[in-house]
Each structure stands twice: as C-alpha cells, then as structure tokens.
C-alpha cells in the first residue's frame, strides 16, 4: 500500500468514528439510545437497513463467489422483496401499535415470558456469533495484505465500532450508516471502473461478458428443482423469502433499524425501498466478480489467491513440487488465454463456434486440474489448510491492479461495510440484553439513567465477545455462506414462533415453547445428518414450530391469553 492509500484509509476511518460520535449525540434516556428518538426519515431507514445487511463479507466474498461459482448466488435474494411486502403489511404496524423496543417483547404479550426469553436467547447466540464474523472479514484483509497480526487487526476494527456505538447508540449507528453507504458506493464503483479499463486493449466489455457467459459465470437463474442444490430460483424465492422474513421481521439488528423511523409510513417506505434495490445491488456485486473472472482469462491469475497459504507451501518441503505446478499452471492459463481469444474471434465471425468453445472449455479444465493438484499438495502438507480462496479473489485484484489512492478507498469501503453491520449488531445485542433480559428478568424498576449505562456496558461486552469469536473464525470457508448457514440454523425456528404468534390463534405459549425446542433440534439434525441445502432449514424450522405447536396444544391444555395478532 502506498502512503496515499494509508492517508485515504486513515482519513475515512477517522471520519466515520468522529461523525458517529458527533451525530449520535448524548442520549440520556433509553428511547433515545435504543430507538434513536424515533426521528429517522425513510431514506435513512432504507440505507440503514441495507448497510446493516451488507457487511464487508458481502463486498469481499460475493465477488469471489461469482468468480468460483458464477452468479447463481443472486437467487438467494429473490425472496427478499416478497418478505419486505409481507412485513410492511403485518409486522411494522403491529410493532408500532405495541410500542415495543425489541421484537421479542411482542412474544410475551402473545404467549408468555418463557417463549420471549427463549427467542431472545436464540437471537443473542446467533447474532453474537455473526457479529464476530462481521468483524473478522476486514481483519482478514489487513492481515493478508499488510501482514498485520490478525488479533491486533480485529481489536482495532472492533474497538472503533465500540467507540461510536457505545457513545451514540442507535442514532449514531443509523446516521453513520448513511456516510458509510456513500463510501461503499464510491469504493465499489471505483473498483468496477478500473476493472473495465484494465481489460486488454483488444478485449471489450462485451467480449468479457461473452467469455464469462461461455464459462458458466453468468448463470443468474436456475429453474431446476433440487433440494440439495443451494441456489435455484425456487430455493431463493421460497427459502430466501422465509430467511428474509425471519431476518427482517424478527432479528433485532434489523427490527431496530425500522423501529427508529418517524412513523409506520417512514418505516414501510424504508423496507420497500430495500425490496426494490437489494436484488439489483447484489446482481451488480456478483457481476463485478464475474468480470474479475473474465479479466483473469486474459491476465494470469495466481495459482491460489491466498498469499499466506501459498507462501507456507513454498517454504515447506513441498516447495519444489509446488514450484513445478506453478510453472505448469502458467503454461495452462497461457493456453487458456489463446483459446479465449480464438473463441471471441469465432463468436464474432460466426464460424467454428462450437469447436472454439470446446477448446476453451478444455483449456480451462486443464488449468483447473493443475490448480486442483496444487491445492491437494497444500492440503497433504497441512491438512488444516483452507482449500477455499474465494475470499481473496477480489482483494487480490484490488491490491495488484488498482492505482494508489483507490486501493485505500476500496479498503475504506470494506471497513465501512463491516463497521456499519457490526455497529447495528452490537446495538441490537445490547438492546435485547437490556430490554429482554436485564430489565425484564434481573433488575426491573431501576431508573432511565441506569438502563442507559447498562446499555452502553452491554455494547462494550458484546463487542468484546464478537472480537473473541472473530479470532477463531478463520477456518469457515466462504464467509458469506458461513454467515448465512449460521443464520439459517436459527432463523426458521424464530420465524415459526413469530408466525404462530401473528396468525395461529389456537396455540399457547407452552405448546410453542416445546415446539420451538423440538424444531431447533430437527434443524440441527438436518444440518448434521442430511445434505439438504441450508436455505431449506428456514422452511423446515418454521413449519416444524407451527405444526408441532398445533400437535402439542391438546396435550398442554390451557390456552395463554391472547393479546394481539397481525390481523387485529
């Protein structure tokens, strides 16, 4: 990194922290600290919702996902707009009518205290671990690029987030997310422009698109129906809608964002804008990854994008063999480049397309085979070595090909994304800890000042927990998938509890409580013992809670008092 990159990165980090502390103000009551005084307009709510979901993992791992597996990951988001509509109709007006601070408060009114406590507990486990992953991702970048110690990097990132989130609470989180969204847009836009201008002079954008398409990297929609296939139109629309309903409707890190809106109208508009913008945004990020793939068909990529693992195997007793594989890989990608140019020529002339396409595919397969040998060699020397380099693909491109200044800007964007998501997570974890646990179960009746102080303390403690988990998160493969798999283990059950509360009048708290425990065991069983794709866990967990609660209800007998439903 050049000095200019350092200046850009340091300035952006300082700006975010100072801006967060300044705009957060100094809340003296819990509504100010936990709900931002309910003063946000829909634009801020929308950006806050989007910035909370799109962490650094989104911008680092998603392009790598497209590089390795194509654009079919976009289908994961297709259920999101449906969820935004459903939540605008049901959850938003209900939460406003109940005047709640956290989503879990609703469950006590509808069911009982133990169901509220169980759901809050599931949220705290899941979101606490996810907050660790959110801090881990940018720390990974700095440790790889700059050789910083991973622990120090995690501490620096986590520490910056803790400073302004503890200082200004929800208001600081939401206001800073607007600034962070602008930095992210600038950084990713700059990377895309440089990528296009870095293509060889004789390769146009359309040529790059053609090569990516012929390599299966523009496979945005898959109509097949296969429960074991992670990303299809159906798993995205159905499983993705359930996941989004659970995430946006019951995860406090998102509920808190739209509860900070001035009114039901402002919150609804924020959610609907997210429903319109999220899918195109993810498509653009994946397209960037597909274009990085096309770029590396004309410029030689490294045999493995993780420089730390590469350096380790080079220095080991397998170094000579690895060097030979690198030479063979260089020759194979050279041949692939020639085949790519021949393919473009054939596509333009219209003659010999099939042969050119077959030759290009065979050249690509030969290069992939050599790369596979190198990964196998790496793993034979160190079985703990991570065989996935998806997270390093985009990063590697940025560092090698972006000019001075823009590297710092892209890194600032990655930091902004990570800080925006993790600050919302810490804010929500603190809210749930104080409102659903401390205030409800441990110390009711204390003063406002006391609860604000405990909220700040909870923010610091959850930040420390996230930092500790982040230090152990290095071996989870593709980060974006790790986060979504982790969420899917819990979200279906949580959503089932909420849907039972919204729509199923015939079930009581005890039946739902028992059903939720059984459903969670079922989901974990699916994860451990079946090959069912993780998006379906959300459907399984949700339906299991509702069906089992209806089955258990006659056994547990008495009904809990009914307070409110979405249709009321």
């Amino acid at each position, binding site marked *: 990194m050049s000095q200019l990159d350092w200046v850009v990165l340091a300035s952006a980090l300082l700006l975010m922290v100072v801006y967060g502390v300044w705009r957060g103000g100094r809340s003296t009551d*819990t509504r100010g600290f936990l709900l931002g005084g309910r003063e946000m307009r829909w634009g801020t709510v929308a950006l806050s919702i989007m910035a909370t979901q799109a962490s650094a993992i989104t911008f680092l791992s998603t392009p790598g996902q497209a590089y390795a597996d194509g654009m079919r990951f976009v289908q994961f988001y297709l259920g999101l707009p449906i969820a935004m509509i459903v939540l605008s109709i049901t959850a938003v007006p209900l939460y406003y009518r109940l005047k709640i601070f956290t989503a879990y408060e609703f469950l*006590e009114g509808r069911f009982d205290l133990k169901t509220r406590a169980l759901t809050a507990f599931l949220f705290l486990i899941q979101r606490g671990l996810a907050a660790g992953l959110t801090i881990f991702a940018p720390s990974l970048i700095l440790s790889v690029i700059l050789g910083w110690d991973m622990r120090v990097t995690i501490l620096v990132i986590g520490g910056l987030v803790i400073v302004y989130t503890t200082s200004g609470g929800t208001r600081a989180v939401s206001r800073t997310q607007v600034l962070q969204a602008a930095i992210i847009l600038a950084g990713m836009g700059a990377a895309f422009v440089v990528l296009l201008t870095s293509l060889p002079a004789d390769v146009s954008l359309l040529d790059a698109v053609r090569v990516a398409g012929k390599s299966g990297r523009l496979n945005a*929609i898959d109509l097949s129906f296969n429960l074991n296939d992670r990303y299809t139109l159906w798993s995205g629309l159905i499983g993705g809608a359930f996941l989004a309903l659970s995430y946006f409707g019951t995860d406090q890190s998102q509920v808190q964002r739209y509860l900070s809106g001035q009114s039901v109208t402002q919150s609804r508009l924020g959610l609907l804008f997210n429903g319109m913008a999220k899918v195109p945004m993810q498509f653009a990020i994946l397209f960037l990854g597909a274009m990085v793939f096309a770029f590396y068909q004309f410029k030689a990529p490294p045999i493995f994008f993780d420089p730390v693992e590469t350096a380790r195997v080079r220095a080991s007793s397998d170094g000579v063999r690895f060097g030979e594989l690198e030479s063979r890989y260089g020759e194979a990608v050279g041949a692939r480049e020639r085949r790519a140019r021949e393919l473009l020529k054939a596509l333009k002339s219209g003659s010999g397309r099939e042969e050119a396409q077959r030759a290009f595919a065979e050249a690509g397969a030969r290069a992939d085979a050599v790369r596979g040998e190198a990964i196998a060699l790496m793993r034979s020397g160190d079985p703990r070595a991570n065989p996935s380099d998806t997270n390093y693909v985009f990063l590697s491109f940025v560092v090698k090909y972006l000019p001075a200044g823009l590297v710092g800007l892209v890194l600032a964007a990655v930091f902004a994304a990570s800080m925006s998501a993790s600050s919302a997570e810490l804010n929500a974890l603190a809210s749930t800890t104080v409102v659903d646990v401390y205030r409800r179960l441990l110390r009711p009746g204390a003063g406002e000042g006391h609860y604000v102080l405990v909220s700040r303390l909870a923010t610091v403690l959850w930040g420390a927990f996230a930092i500790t988990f982040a230090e152990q998160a290095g071996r989870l493969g593709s980060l974006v998938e790790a986060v979504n798999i982790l969420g899917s283990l819990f979200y279906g059950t949580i959503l089932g509890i909420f849907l039972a509360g919204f729509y199923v009048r015939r079930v009581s708290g005890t039946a739902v409580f028992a059903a939720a425990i059984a459903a969670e065991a079922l989901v974990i069983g699916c994860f451990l013992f079946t090959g069912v794709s993780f998006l379906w866990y959300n459907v399984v967990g949700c339906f299991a809670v509702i069906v089992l609660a209806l089955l258990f209800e006659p056994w547990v007998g008495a009904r809990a008092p009914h*307070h409110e439903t979405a249709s009321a």
Partner: protein
Amino acid sequence: MGSPKDGSPGPLPEPGPRSPDPGLPDEPPPFGRSWGTLYAVVGCTLAALIVLFYAFTRALE
C-alpha cells in the same frame, strides 16, 4: 413525554405484556395512490428482474 405515535418518545415502559395502541392511524403513502399500489410496484419489479435475469442467463450461457 408523549407516545411514539406523536413522534416524541418517552422512557422505557414497564416490563411485561404490552397492550396495543389502537389509535395509530394507517396513513396513505406520500407517493403512489395507495400502499397496495406500492406493494404491486415492488412485486412487479421482482417479476421483471427474474425475467431479465433469466433472459441474461439464456442469452450468454
């Protein structure tokens, strides 16, 4: 201190089951004729994106 309904929030309410505020008005959206119209716009945008992505996939595979 007022209620969230008038935008001037008060302190953390008492713990325990919360009774709903029945007087919250369902305001029309500031643009578009109704909330139903806005929901239809979001749904149609999703449908259009799926068709577009499918055409994109088929044209370039």
